[in-house]
Protein backbone atom coordinates (compact mmCIF):
# COMPACT_ATOMS: atom_id res chain seq x y z
CA UNK A 1 0.00 0.00 0.00
CA UNK A 2 2.73 2.34 0.95
CA UNK A 3 4.63 1.90 -2.27
CA UNK A 4 1.42 2.62 -4.10
CA UNK A 5 0.93 5.91 -2.30
CA UNK A 6 4.51 6.91 -2.95
CA UNK A 7 4.18 6.06 -6.60
CA UNK A 8 0.94 7.99 -6.80
CA UNK A 9 2.54 11.03 -5.31
CA UNK A 10 5.44 10.82 -7.72
CA UNK A 11 2.98 10.54 -10.59
CA UNK A 12 1.12 13.57 -9.35
CA UNK A 13 4.35 15.51 -9.17
CA UNK A 14 5.32 14.45 -12.67
CA UNK A 15 1.94 15.40 -14.04
CA UNK A 16 2.11 18.79 -12.44
CA UNK A 17 5.58 19.38 -13.75
CA UNK A 18 4.50 18.18 -17.14
CA UNK A 19 1.62 20.61 -17.09
CA UNK A 20 3.97 23.43 -16.29
CA UNK A 21 6.27 22.37 -19.08
CA UNK A 22 3.50 22.15 -21.59
CA UNK A 23 1.67 25.33 -20.76
CA UNK A 24 4.42 27.63 -19.55
CA UNK A 25 7.97 26.50 -20.19
CA UNK A 26 7.56 25.49 -23.81
CA UNK A 27 7.60 28.38 -26.22
CA UNK A 28 4.55 29.28 -28.24
CA UNK A 29 4.70 27.76 -31.65
CA UNK A 30 5.39 30.20 -34.41
CA UNK A 31 2.62 29.39 -36.89
CA UNK A 32 -0.01 27.61 -34.85
CA UNK A 33 -0.06 29.56 -31.63
CA UNK A 34 -1.03 28.23 -28.24
CA UNK A 35 -3.33 25.60 -29.68
CA UNK A 36 -0.27 23.61 -30.57
CA UNK A 37 0.21 22.84 -26.90
CA UNK A 38 -2.39 20.11 -27.24
CA UNK A 39 0.37 18.22 -28.99
CA UNK A 40 2.04 17.63 -25.63
CA UNK A 41 -0.95 15.56 -24.66
CA UNK A 42 -1.77 14.15 -28.04
CA UNK A 43 1.55 12.50 -28.76
CA UNK A 44 2.22 10.89 -25.37
CA UNK A 45 -1.33 9.56 -25.27
CA UNK A 46 -0.85 8.01 -28.67
CA UNK A 47 2.40 6.36 -27.68
CA UNK A 48 0.89 4.98 -24.50
CA UNK A 49 -2.23 3.74 -26.26
CA UNK A 50 -0.10 1.69 -28.62
CA UNK A 51 2.17 0.49 -25.83
CA UNK A 52 -0.85 -0.70 -23.86
CA UNK A 53 -2.03 -2.48 -26.93
CA UNK A 54 1.18 -4.38 -27.34
CA UNK A 55 1.23 -5.17 -23.64
CA UNK A 56 -2.25 -6.60 -24.11
CA UNK A 57 -0.98 -8.66 -27.02
CA UNK A 58 1.92 -10.01 -24.97
CA UNK A 59 -0.31 -10.86 -22.02
CA UNK A 60 -2.81 -12.57 -24.34
CA UNK A 61 -0.16 -14.73 -25.98
CA UNK A 62 1.16 -15.70 -22.57
CA UNK A 63 -2.34 -16.50 -21.40
CA UNK A 64 -3.00 -18.84 -24.31
CA UNK A 65 0.30 -20.57 -23.72
CA UNK A 66 0.12 -20.94 -19.97
CA UNK A 67 -3.50 -20.21 -19.02
CA UNK A 68 -2.27 -18.10 -16.15
CA UNK A 69 -4.98 -15.92 -14.56
CA UNK A 70 -2.49 -13.16 -13.77
CA UNK A 71 -1.76 -12.59 -17.43
CA UNK A 72 -5.47 -12.40 -18.13
CA UNK A 73 -5.76 -9.71 -15.46
CA UNK A 74 -2.92 -7.81 -17.15
CA UNK A 75 -4.69 -8.13 -20.49
CA UNK A 76 -7.92 -6.65 -19.18
CA UNK A 77 -6.17 -3.84 -17.35
CA UNK A 78 -4.07 -2.77 -20.33
CA UNK A 79 -7.08 -2.95 -22.65
CA UNK A 80 -9.18 -0.71 -20.46
CA UNK A 81 -6.45 1.81 -19.84
CA UNK A 82 -5.40 1.70 -23.47
CA UNK A 83 -8.83 2.55 -24.74
CA UNK A 84 -8.96 5.60 -22.49
CA UNK A 85 -5.71 6.94 -23.87
CA UNK A 86 -6.83 6.06 -27.36
CA UNK A 87 -9.98 8.09 -26.84
CA UNK A 88 -7.85 11.01 -25.67
CA UNK A 89 -5.87 10.83 -28.90
CA UNK A 90 -9.00 10.78 -31.01
CA UNK A 91 -10.43 13.79 -29.19
CA UNK A 92 -7.29 15.92 -28.99
CA UNK A 93 -6.52 15.27 -32.64
CA UNK A 94 -9.57 17.00 -34.10
CA UNK A 95 -9.42 19.68 -31.40
CA UNK A 96 -5.99 20.56 -32.64
CA UNK A 97 -6.65 20.08 -36.32
CA UNK A 98 -9.72 22.24 -36.59
CA UNK A 99 -8.27 25.62 -35.62
CA UNK A 100 -4.96 24.94 -37.30
CA UNK A 101 -5.85 23.31 -40.62
CA UNK A 102 -9.59 23.98 -40.79
CA UNK A 103 -10.60 20.33 -40.85
CA UNK A 104 -11.82 18.15 -38.01
CA UNK A 105 -10.57 14.91 -39.41
CA UNK A 106 -8.44 13.40 -42.12
CA UNK A 107 -8.01 9.84 -43.18
CA UNK A 108 -4.26 9.78 -42.99
CA UNK A 109 -2.25 6.82 -41.80
CA UNK A 110 -1.75 7.83 -38.21
CA UNK A 111 -5.23 8.99 -37.33
CA UNK A 112 -6.95 6.17 -39.12
CA UNK A 113 -4.71 3.58 -37.52
CA UNK A 114 -5.61 5.02 -34.18
CA UNK A 115 -9.29 4.88 -35.02
CA UNK A 116 -9.02 1.26 -36.06
CA UNK A 117 -7.08 0.53 -32.90
CA UNK A 118 -9.89 2.11 -30.93
CA UNK A 119 -12.44 -0.04 -32.75
CA UNK A 120 -10.44 -3.15 -31.98
CA UNK A 121 -10.25 -2.18 -28.31
CA UNK A 122 -14.01 -1.68 -28.28
CA UNK A 123 -14.69 -5.04 -29.87
CA UNK A 124 -12.31 -6.63 -27.38
CA UNK A 125 -14.13 -5.11 -24.42
CA UNK A 126 -17.53 -5.99 -25.85
CA UNK A 127 -16.44 -9.57 -26.39
CA UNK A 128 -15.28 -9.56 -22.81
CA UNK A 129 -18.70 -8.51 -21.69
CA UNK A 130 -20.80 -10.70 -23.92
CA UNK A 131 -19.10 -14.06 -23.75
CA UNK A 132 -19.89 -16.57 -21.06
CA UNK A 133 -17.79 -16.66 -17.94
CA UNK A 134 -15.71 -19.68 -18.70
CA UNK A 135 -14.56 -18.92 -22.22
CA UNK A 136 -14.14 -15.24 -21.76
CA UNK A 137 -10.37 -14.97 -21.38
CA UNK A 138 -9.59 -17.46 -24.12
CA UNK A 139 -11.75 -15.84 -26.77
CA UNK A 140 -10.51 -12.38 -25.87
CA UNK A 141 -6.91 -13.51 -26.02
CA UNK A 142 -7.50 -14.89 -29.49
CA UNK A 143 -9.09 -11.62 -30.58
CA UNK A 144 -6.16 -9.67 -29.18
CA UNK A 145 -3.79 -11.63 -31.39
CA UNK A 146 -5.87 -10.96 -34.48
CA UNK A 147 -6.05 -7.32 -33.52
CA UNK A 148 -2.32 -6.96 -33.08
CA UNK A 149 -1.57 -8.54 -36.44
CA UNK A 150 -4.20 -6.33 -37.97
CA UNK A 151 -2.81 -3.04 -36.69
CA UNK A 152 0.35 -3.61 -38.68
CA UNK A 153 -1.65 -4.17 -41.84
CA UNK A 154 -3.87 -1.18 -41.14
CA UNK A 155 -0.99 1.21 -40.96
CA UNK A 156 0.55 -0.05 -44.17
CA UNK A 157 -2.72 -0.16 -46.04
CA UNK A 158 -3.58 3.42 -45.24
CA UNK A 159 -0.16 4.71 -46.20
CA UNK A 160 -0.38 3.02 -49.55
CA UNK A 161 -4.04 3.13 -50.48
CA UNK A 162 -5.35 6.39 -49.19
CA UNK A 163 -3.77 8.72 -51.71
CA UNK A 164 -6.36 11.46 -51.36
CA UNK A 165 -5.35 12.39 -47.86
CA UNK A 166 -1.67 12.91 -47.24
CA UNK A 167 -0.71 13.43 -43.62
CA UNK A 168 -0.72 17.05 -42.54
CA UNK A 169 2.81 18.26 -42.13
CA UNK A 170 3.29 19.22 -38.54
CA UNK A 171 5.37 22.26 -39.36
CA UNK A 172 8.36 22.82 -37.18
CA UNK A 173 6.82 20.93 -34.31
CA UNK A 174 8.08 17.48 -35.26
CA UNK A 175 10.54 17.56 -38.07
CA UNK A 176 13.98 19.11 -38.25
CA UNK A 177 14.80 22.03 -36.01
CA UNK A 178 12.54 21.27 -33.11
CA UNK A 179 13.02 23.69 -30.29
CA UNK A 180 14.71 21.83 -27.40
CA UNK A 181 12.23 23.30 -24.91
CA UNK A 182 9.43 21.75 -26.91
CA UNK A 183 11.22 18.44 -26.88
CA UNK A 184 11.52 18.70 -23.11
CA UNK A 185 7.79 19.26 -22.78
CA UNK A 186 7.14 16.17 -24.84
CA UNK A 187 9.50 14.00 -22.84
CA UNK A 188 8.27 15.13 -19.45
CA UNK A 189 4.67 14.62 -20.40
CA UNK A 190 5.49 11.24 -21.84
CA UNK A 191 7.07 10.30 -18.57
CA UNK A 192 4.18 11.67 -16.54
CA UNK A 193 1.57 9.93 -18.67
CA UNK A 194 3.47 6.67 -18.56
CA UNK A 195 3.57 6.90 -14.79
CA UNK A 196 -0.13 7.58 -14.68
CA UNK A 197 -0.86 4.74 -17.07
CA UNK A 198 1.18 2.34 -14.97
CA UNK A 199 -0.58 3.51 -11.84
CA UNK A 200 -4.03 2.95 -13.25
CA UNK A 201 -3.05 -0.36 -14.84
CA UNK A 202 -1.71 -1.49 -11.51
CA UNK A 203 -4.97 -0.53 -9.81
CA UNK A 204 -7.07 -2.25 -12.42
CA UNK A 205 -4.88 -5.34 -12.29
CA UNK A 206 -5.30 -5.52 -8.52
CA UNK A 207 -9.05 -5.12 -8.94
CA UNK A 208 -9.20 -7.91 -11.47
CA UNK A 209 -7.12 -10.20 -9.31
CA UNK A 210 -9.43 -9.51 -6.39
CA UNK A 211 -12.41 -10.34 -8.56
CA UNK A 212 -10.77 -13.59 -9.60
CA UNK A 213 -10.10 -14.43 -5.98
CA UNK A 214 -13.67 -13.67 -4.98
CA UNK A 215 -14.85 -16.02 -7.71
CA UNK A 216 -12.45 -18.65 -6.46
CA UNK A 217 -13.79 -18.24 -2.94
CA UNK A 218 -17.35 -18.54 -4.17
CA UNK A 219 -16.39 -21.59 -6.13
CA UNK A 220 -14.74 -23.23 -3.16
CA UNK A 221 -17.81 -22.54 -1.09
CA UNK A 222 -20.07 -23.90 -3.81
CA UNK A 223 -18.02 -27.05 -4.08
CA UNK A 224 -17.91 -27.68 -0.38
CA UNK A 225 -21.29 -26.54 0.78
CA UNK A 226 -23.51 -27.25 -2.16
CA UNK A 227 -24.95 -23.73 -2.19
CA UNK A 228 -26.32 -22.57 -5.52
Amino acid sequence: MKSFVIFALITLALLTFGLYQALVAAPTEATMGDVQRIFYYHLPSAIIAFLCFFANFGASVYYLAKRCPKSDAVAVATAEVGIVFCTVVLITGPLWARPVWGIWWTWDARLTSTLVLWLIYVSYLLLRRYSAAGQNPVLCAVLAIFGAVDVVFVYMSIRWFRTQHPAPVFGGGENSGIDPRMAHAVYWNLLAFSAMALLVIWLRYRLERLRQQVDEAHATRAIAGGSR
Partner: protein
Amino acid sequence: MSTGENSQPPSAPILVLKEVTKLFGRFAALRAISAEFTPGRLYVVLGDNGAGKSTLLRAIAGLARPTRGDVQVLGSAKIHEVTARIGYMAHAPLLYDEMDAMENLRYAARLYGISDPARCEQVVRMVGLDPTLARRVGQYSQGMRQRLSLARAVLNDPELLLLDEPFSNVDIVSAREMVRLLGQMRDTGKTILVVTHQPILLEGVADESVVMSAGQIVARERGVSSAYRHDAAEVR
Protein backbone atom coordinates in the same frame (compact mmCIF):
# COMPACT_ATOMS: atom_id res chain seq x y z
CA MET B 1 -31.78 -61.25 -17.57
CA SER B 2 -29.94 -60.66 -14.33
CA THR B 3 -26.24 -60.16 -14.61
CA GLY B 4 -25.26 -60.82 -11.03
CA GLU B 5 -21.59 -60.79 -10.25
CA ASN B 6 -19.18 -59.98 -13.04
CA SER B 7 -17.30 -63.25 -13.41
CA GLN B 8 -14.31 -61.78 -15.18
CA PRO B 9 -11.14 -61.15 -13.20
CA PRO B 10 -10.83 -57.53 -11.98
CA SER B 11 -9.28 -55.30 -14.60
CA ALA B 12 -7.94 -51.77 -14.58
CA PRO B 13 -10.69 -49.18 -14.35
CA ILE B 14 -11.72 -47.79 -17.67
CA LEU B 15 -12.65 -44.45 -16.19
CA VAL B 16 -11.14 -42.66 -13.21
CA LEU B 17 -12.42 -39.37 -11.81
CA LYS B 18 -10.25 -37.51 -9.34
CA GLU B 19 -11.79 -34.58 -7.49
CA VAL B 20 -13.54 -33.51 -10.65
CA THR B 21 -15.17 -30.12 -10.29
CA LYS B 22 -17.02 -28.17 -12.94
CA LEU B 23 -18.02 -24.59 -12.39
CA PHE B 24 -20.31 -22.49 -14.50
CA GLY B 25 -19.65 -19.03 -13.18
CA ARG B 26 -20.40 -19.44 -9.50
CA PHE B 27 -22.55 -22.52 -9.84
CA ALA B 28 -20.81 -25.82 -9.11
CA ALA B 29 -22.35 -28.45 -11.36
CA LEU B 30 -19.86 -31.08 -10.27
CA ARG B 31 -18.31 -30.93 -6.84
CA ALA B 32 -15.03 -32.76 -6.28
CA ILE B 33 -16.25 -36.08 -7.62
CA SER B 34 -13.94 -39.03 -7.26
CA ALA B 35 -14.96 -42.36 -8.68
CA GLU B 36 -13.80 -45.35 -10.66
CA PHE B 37 -15.67 -47.35 -13.23
CA THR B 38 -14.90 -50.93 -14.17
CA PRO B 39 -14.91 -51.94 -17.81
CA GLY B 40 -17.56 -54.20 -19.24
CA ARG B 41 -20.41 -52.92 -17.12
CA LEU B 42 -23.59 -51.03 -17.72
CA TYR B 43 -23.99 -48.18 -15.27
CA VAL B 44 -27.18 -46.21 -14.90
CA VAL B 45 -26.74 -42.67 -13.63
CA LEU B 46 -29.70 -41.37 -11.66
CA GLY B 47 -30.63 -38.21 -9.87
CA ASP B 48 -32.81 -35.14 -9.89
CA ASN B 49 -32.68 -32.43 -12.46
CA GLY B 50 -29.64 -30.28 -11.86
CA ALA B 51 -27.78 -33.02 -10.05
CA GLY B 52 -24.99 -32.83 -12.60
CA LYS B 53 -25.61 -36.02 -14.57
CA SER B 54 -25.35 -34.47 -18.00
CA THR B 55 -22.34 -32.43 -16.98
CA LEU B 56 -20.66 -35.58 -15.74
CA LEU B 57 -21.11 -37.28 -19.08
CA ARG B 58 -19.94 -34.22 -20.95
CA ALA B 59 -16.84 -34.04 -18.79
CA ILE B 60 -16.05 -37.66 -19.58
CA ALA B 61 -16.71 -37.14 -23.28
CA GLY B 62 -14.35 -34.19 -23.39
CA LEU B 63 -17.02 -31.57 -24.04
CA ALA B 64 -16.73 -29.89 -20.67
CA ARG B 65 -13.24 -29.38 -19.36
CA PRO B 66 -13.16 -29.82 -15.57
CA THR B 67 -12.40 -26.65 -13.68
CA ARG B 68 -10.46 -28.69 -11.18
CA GLY B 69 -9.43 -32.28 -10.90
CA ASP B 70 -8.92 -34.63 -13.78
CA VAL B 71 -10.64 -37.30 -15.78
CA GLN B 72 -8.75 -40.33 -16.96
CA VAL B 73 -10.41 -42.25 -19.72
CA LEU B 74 -9.06 -45.47 -21.17
CA GLY B 75 -5.83 -44.84 -19.34
CA SER B 76 -5.26 -41.40 -20.78
CA ALA B 77 -5.51 -38.03 -19.08
CA LYS B 78 -5.95 -36.30 -22.41
CA ILE B 79 -9.39 -37.16 -23.62
CA HIS B 80 -8.70 -35.83 -27.10
CA GLU B 81 -6.26 -38.66 -27.66
CA VAL B 82 -8.75 -41.40 -26.98
CA THR B 83 -11.82 -39.67 -28.30
CA ALA B 84 -12.01 -42.11 -31.20
CA ARG B 85 -12.78 -44.87 -28.72
CA ILE B 86 -15.60 -43.06 -26.99
CA GLY B 87 -19.19 -42.83 -28.15
CA TYR B 88 -21.53 -40.07 -26.97
CA MET B 89 -25.23 -39.61 -27.41
CA ALA B 90 -27.15 -36.68 -26.01
CA HIS B 91 -30.63 -35.34 -26.29
CA ALA B 92 -29.63 -33.28 -29.29
CA PRO B 93 -29.20 -35.81 -32.04
CA LEU B 94 -25.95 -34.41 -33.48
CA LEU B 95 -27.45 -35.05 -36.90
CA TYR B 96 -28.37 -32.85 -39.84
CA ASP B 97 -32.06 -32.57 -40.56
CA GLU B 98 -31.60 -32.04 -44.26
CA MET B 99 -29.80 -35.30 -44.91
CA ASP B 100 -31.07 -38.85 -44.69
CA ALA B 101 -29.81 -41.53 -42.31
CA MET B 102 -27.10 -43.02 -44.48
CA GLU B 103 -25.76 -39.62 -45.53
CA ASN B 104 -25.50 -38.56 -41.92
CA LEU B 105 -23.73 -41.72 -40.92
CA ARG B 106 -21.40 -41.70 -43.87
CA TYR B 107 -20.32 -38.21 -42.95
CA ALA B 108 -19.80 -39.18 -39.32
CA ALA B 109 -17.80 -42.19 -40.50
CA ARG B 110 -15.42 -39.94 -42.38
CA LEU B 111 -14.99 -37.75 -39.32
CA TYR B 112 -13.78 -40.85 -37.52
CA GLY B 113 -11.70 -42.15 -40.38
CA ILE B 114 -13.73 -45.33 -40.71
CA SER B 115 -12.80 -46.83 -44.01
CA ASP B 116 -15.12 -49.83 -44.12
CA PRO B 117 -18.01 -48.90 -46.39
CA ALA B 118 -20.36 -51.51 -44.98
CA ARG B 119 -20.07 -50.25 -41.42
CA CYS B 120 -22.76 -47.56 -41.74
CA GLU B 121 -25.29 -49.97 -43.12
CA GLN B 122 -24.46 -52.49 -40.45
CA VAL B 123 -24.95 -49.97 -37.68
CA VAL B 124 -28.23 -48.74 -39.13
CA ARG B 125 -29.58 -52.26 -39.20
CA MET B 126 -28.28 -52.80 -35.71
CA VAL B 127 -30.62 -50.16 -34.35
CA GLY B 128 -33.50 -51.46 -36.38
CA LEU B 129 -33.70 -48.80 -39.07
CA ASP B 130 -33.94 -49.32 -42.79
CA PRO B 131 -30.76 -48.23 -44.60
CA THR B 132 -32.57 -47.72 -47.87
CA LEU B 133 -34.90 -45.17 -46.34
CA ALA B 134 -34.33 -41.89 -48.17
CA ARG B 135 -36.44 -39.80 -45.83
CA ARG B 136 -34.65 -36.80 -44.32
CA VAL B 137 -33.89 -36.96 -40.63
CA GLY B 138 -35.91 -33.79 -40.07
CA GLN B 139 -39.01 -35.83 -40.81
CA TYR B 140 -38.24 -38.68 -38.47
CA SER B 141 -40.25 -39.50 -35.41
CA GLN B 142 -38.48 -39.04 -32.12
CA GLY B 143 -38.01 -42.76 -31.71
CA MET B 144 -36.34 -43.07 -35.08
CA ARG B 145 -34.19 -40.07 -34.40
CA GLN B 146 -32.96 -41.47 -31.13
CA ARG B 147 -32.22 -44.79 -32.80
CA LEU B 148 -30.18 -43.06 -35.46
CA SER B 149 -28.43 -40.99 -32.84
CA LEU B 150 -27.49 -44.19 -31.08
CA ALA B 151 -26.27 -45.62 -34.36
CA ARG B 152 -24.02 -42.62 -34.81
CA ALA B 153 -22.69 -43.03 -31.28
CA VAL B 154 -21.67 -46.63 -31.87
CA LEU B 155 -20.39 -46.11 -35.39
CA ASN B 156 -16.78 -46.11 -34.30
CA ASP B 157 -17.33 -49.21 -32.15
CA PRO B 158 -16.41 -47.37 -28.95
CA GLU B 159 -15.15 -49.11 -25.85
CA LEU B 160 -16.89 -46.54 -23.69
CA LEU B 161 -20.40 -45.47 -24.53
CA LEU B 162 -22.01 -42.44 -22.91
CA LEU B 163 -25.74 -42.01 -23.33
CA ASP B 164 -27.58 -38.99 -21.97
CA GLU B 165 -31.33 -39.62 -21.70
CA PRO B 166 -31.52 -41.93 -24.71
CA PHE B 167 -35.12 -42.94 -24.01
CA SER B 168 -36.71 -39.56 -23.57
CA ASN B 169 -39.78 -39.10 -25.77
CA VAL B 170 -39.20 -42.51 -27.29
CA ASP B 171 -42.01 -45.00 -27.74
CA ILE B 172 -41.92 -47.99 -25.42
CA VAL B 173 -41.17 -50.48 -28.17
CA SER B 174 -38.12 -48.59 -29.41
CA ALA B 175 -36.98 -48.02 -25.84
CA ARG B 176 -37.13 -51.71 -24.99
CA GLU B 177 -35.28 -52.54 -28.17
CA MET B 178 -32.57 -50.05 -27.31
CA VAL B 179 -32.20 -51.53 -23.85
CA ARG B 180 -31.84 -55.00 -25.28
CA LEU B 181 -29.19 -53.76 -27.67
CA LEU B 182 -27.33 -52.05 -24.87
CA GLY B 183 -27.32 -55.25 -22.89
CA GLN B 184 -25.89 -57.11 -25.85
CA MET B 185 -23.19 -54.50 -26.31
CA ARG B 186 -22.30 -54.71 -22.66
CA ASP B 187 -22.01 -58.46 -23.02
CA THR B 188 -19.43 -58.00 -25.75
CA GLY B 189 -17.27 -56.06 -23.31
CA LYS B 190 -18.30 -52.45 -23.77
CA THR B 191 -18.66 -50.11 -20.85
CA ILE B 192 -21.86 -48.12 -20.93
CA LEU B 193 -23.02 -45.18 -18.85
CA VAL B 194 -26.67 -44.27 -19.21
CA VAL B 195 -28.29 -41.17 -17.75
CA THR B 196 -32.02 -41.60 -17.56
CA HIS B 197 -35.14 -40.58 -15.70
CA GLN B 198 -36.70 -43.93 -16.47
CA PRO B 199 -34.52 -46.42 -14.62
CA ILE B 200 -37.22 -49.01 -14.71
CA LEU B 201 -36.41 -49.59 -18.36
CA LEU B 202 -32.97 -50.81 -17.38
CA GLU B 203 -34.13 -53.16 -14.71
CA GLY B 204 -32.40 -56.49 -15.05
CA VAL B 205 -29.86 -55.12 -17.48
CA ALA B 206 -27.97 -52.51 -15.48
CA ASP B 207 -25.01 -53.71 -13.45
CA GLU B 208 -24.77 -50.77 -11.14
CA SER B 209 -26.58 -47.58 -10.27
CA VAL B 210 -24.79 -44.34 -9.63
CA VAL B 211 -26.98 -41.86 -7.82
CA MET B 212 -26.10 -38.19 -8.04
CA SER B 213 -27.37 -35.25 -6.10
CA ALA B 214 -26.24 -31.62 -6.08
CA GLY B 215 -23.10 -32.31 -8.05
CA GLN B 216 -21.89 -35.31 -6.14
CA ILE B 217 -22.23 -39.07 -6.28
CA VAL B 218 -24.19 -39.99 -3.20
CA ALA B 219 -24.78 -43.68 -3.67
CA ARG B 220 -23.65 -46.64 -5.76
CA GLU B 221 -25.56 -49.88 -5.66
CA ARG B 222 -25.97 -53.11 -7.48
CA GLY B 223 -28.69 -53.25 -10.16
CA VAL B 224 -31.42 -50.66 -10.36
CA SER B 225 -34.60 -50.96 -8.37
CA SER B 226 -33.49 -50.66 -4.78
CA ALA B 227 -30.85 -48.02 -5.49
CA TYR B 228 -32.97 -45.18 -6.75
CA ARG B 229 -33.40 -42.88 -3.86
CA HIS B 230 -33.81 -39.13 -4.01
CA ASP B 231 -32.54 -38.29 -0.57
CA ALA B 232 -28.90 -39.09 -0.24
CA ALA B 233 -28.31 -41.73 2.37
CA GLU B 234 -25.01 -43.51 2.16
CA VAL B 235 -21.93 -42.39 0.36
CA ARG B 236 -19.63 -45.25 -0.65
